[in-house]
């Protein structure tokens, strides 16, 4: 279906229909895309995406027999299941989670906007049909596993708000359980209050027919930290665009990711860290293994504003290309307006080191085994500081991926 048809026929699902400001804004956004009134050539948000692919889709959103849950796996260890973007409204002394309603328009008006040229975020605004408001109360120490179930053919346009309040210490896991043929355009607004410590691990492992566009904007206040890791084992298209704002002094953020591509898989990645305060540290590292005809891109960006002295910022991209037919485009960028900063970026992308392969094989290991050992070593360091269960899950996914390589 065309963009126009979708817009006209599915306007009722829009959450903020009653709010004039947001509705107008939405209308304008729609017009901008419809009239192709945006930068089409150098638009990072469209890297590895064709606009006609994203604008022509079968909008379908009828969450009827949904069954979202909130359960406790353990003490202070939650499992929260969202179904088609909907959660079960729940509150206890540690957390509060609920679906957003049109009464929440104020938080929408106030959300950090770093996505001015992001067409995917424009689509998220135009078709917004779900969202959750998630509050983690202060001084709590929790583990949360957030499972996103999306039914067949569903198009979920979701905008979520997570507040990590003062002094909380949280390990948040996102799992995407997509069935078939779904489109998931999900935007996170994450606020990390003073002295809060957040580890956010995101698992993406789903089949070819699904698409996931995941965007996040996090804001760190004084002495807080936000560490995000994405693990992308998906056959379906994934876009990871993540922005972190260091607004409070002595805060730090890392946006890291690993992806494992085969066949004709495509992924598009971007990270962006904005230093707005003194004495902050940031790290952006994406690593990928690419096989067959797969394709990846990674933009990284460190912005240091003029008052963000004593900034430390690192950027790195690493890739192993297993065939001559895959490609990994990487573009690091630094924009620095303060003078007392330490920033660096690096990039190493290429085939498996032949001399390493020779060394391992010369001790009797088969080529396949040697290859696997080198590939596993590639993410070895990323597994070191992880919770045992998570590390196990990743290494299971990794061995599945490695198995698939030998079948090619």
């Amino acid at each position, binding site marked *: 279906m065309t963009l126009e048809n979708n817009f006209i026929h599915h306007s009722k699902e829009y959450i903020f229909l009653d709010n004039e400001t947001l509705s107008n804004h939405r209308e304008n956004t729609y017009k901008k895309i419809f009239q192709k009134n945006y930068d089409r050539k150098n638009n990072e948000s469209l890297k590895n995406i064709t606009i006609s692919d994203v604008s022509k889709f079968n909008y379908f959103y009828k969450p009827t027999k949904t069954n979202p849950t909130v359960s406790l796996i353990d003490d202070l260890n939650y499992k929260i299941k969202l179904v088609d973007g909907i959660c079960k409204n729940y509150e206890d002394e540690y957390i509060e989670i609920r679906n957003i309603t049109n009464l929440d328009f104020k938080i929408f008006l106030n959300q950090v906007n770093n996505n001015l040229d992001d067409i995917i975020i424009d689509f998220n605004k135009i078709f917004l049909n779900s969202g959750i408001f998630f509050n983690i109360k202060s001084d709590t120490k929790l583990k949360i596993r957030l499972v996103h179930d999306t039914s067949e053919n569903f198009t979920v346009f979701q905008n979520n708000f997570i507040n990590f309040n003062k002094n909380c210490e949280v390990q948040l896991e996102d799992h995407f359980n997509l069935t078939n043929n779904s489109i998931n355009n999900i935007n996170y607004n994450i606020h990390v209050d003073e002295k809060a410590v957040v580890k956010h691990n995101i698992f993406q492992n789903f089949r070819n027919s699904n698409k996931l566009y995941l965007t996040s904007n996090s804001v760190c206040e004084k002495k807080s930290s936000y560490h995000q890791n994405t693990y992308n084992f998906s056959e379906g298209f994934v876009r990871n665009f993540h922005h972190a704002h260091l607004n409070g002094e002595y805060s730090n953020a890392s946006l890291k990711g690993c992806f494992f591509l085969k066949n004709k898989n495509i992924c598009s990645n971007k990270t962006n860290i904005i230093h707005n305060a003194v004495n902050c540290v940031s790290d952006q590292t994406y690593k990928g293994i690419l096989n067959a005809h797969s394709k990846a891109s990674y933009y990284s960006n460190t912005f240091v504003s003029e008052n963000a002295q004593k900034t430390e910022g690192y950027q790195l991209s690493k890739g192993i290309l297993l065939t001559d037919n895959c490609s990994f485009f990487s573009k690091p960028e630094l924009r620095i307006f303060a003078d007392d900063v330490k920033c660096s970026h690096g990039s190493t992308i290429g085939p498996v*080191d032949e*001399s*390493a392969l*020779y*060394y*391992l*094989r*010369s*001790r*009797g*290991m*088969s*080529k396949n*085994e*040697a290859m696997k*050992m*080198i590939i596993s*070593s*590639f993410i*070895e*360091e990323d597994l070191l500081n992880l919770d045992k269960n998570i590390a196990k899950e990743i290494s299971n996914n990794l061995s599945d991926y490695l198995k698939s390589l030998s079948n090619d």
Partner: protein
Amino acid sequence: MIFLNINNLNVSIEGKKILNDFNITINEGEVHAIMGPNGCGKSTLANVLAGNEDYEVNSGKVIFKDEDLLDLNIEERAQKGLFLAFQYPVEIPGVNITPFLQASINSKLKNEKKPELDNLSFAKLLRKKAEELGINTDMLKRSINTGFSGGEKKRYEILQMSVLNPELTIFDETDSGLDVDALKIVTEGINRFKNPKNSFLIITHYQKLLDYIHPDHVHVMRNGKIVKSGDISLASEVEVSGYQNF
């Protein structure tokens, strides 16, 4: 059984001829040494025997344990009992020594249809061998050769040899870069490892190593072939007057 026979081997790299009708025969239990000026093709010989695919074998034959060695790939040669201690061991960050060596020995055992070693018995074996060679067991937790000093890399090659227990070991300048004490430990290690079934091809620039190891044959190599063979006295000749007389 023919243990190792190299017959009129011609090898080139990027069109440049390096080995030139090279011949040698090594029998079971023998220790051979090859000396020769820089660039004469010693490492080329070692790498061609190990199966390095960068080199082009233009003609000639290599029989190892009655089989055509050149028909085998890199790992098959290792599994059949060939081991090369590299002149420049490569650093492989992230690949830990212990699982790497365990996987190596197990692929060999598997090939010989013998039971594989479990983690515990392998760890024991590795620790024992490391202690024999004066290698700090802390090193066994590290990534392959990563950040090792020149001498540490060489010692670690010897450790791999003693764990994998090969029948033919090629040392490519394993003595270079070792301090006096390390040289002693390494040669003791080699001597302990020597038995009527194990053979060695030792590539070296120095007589010192040969004094400790007592090779059965010493060869001088120039321009891709052996130009003179003899006993240990040949090494002293090289030591005194260099290669111009050969």
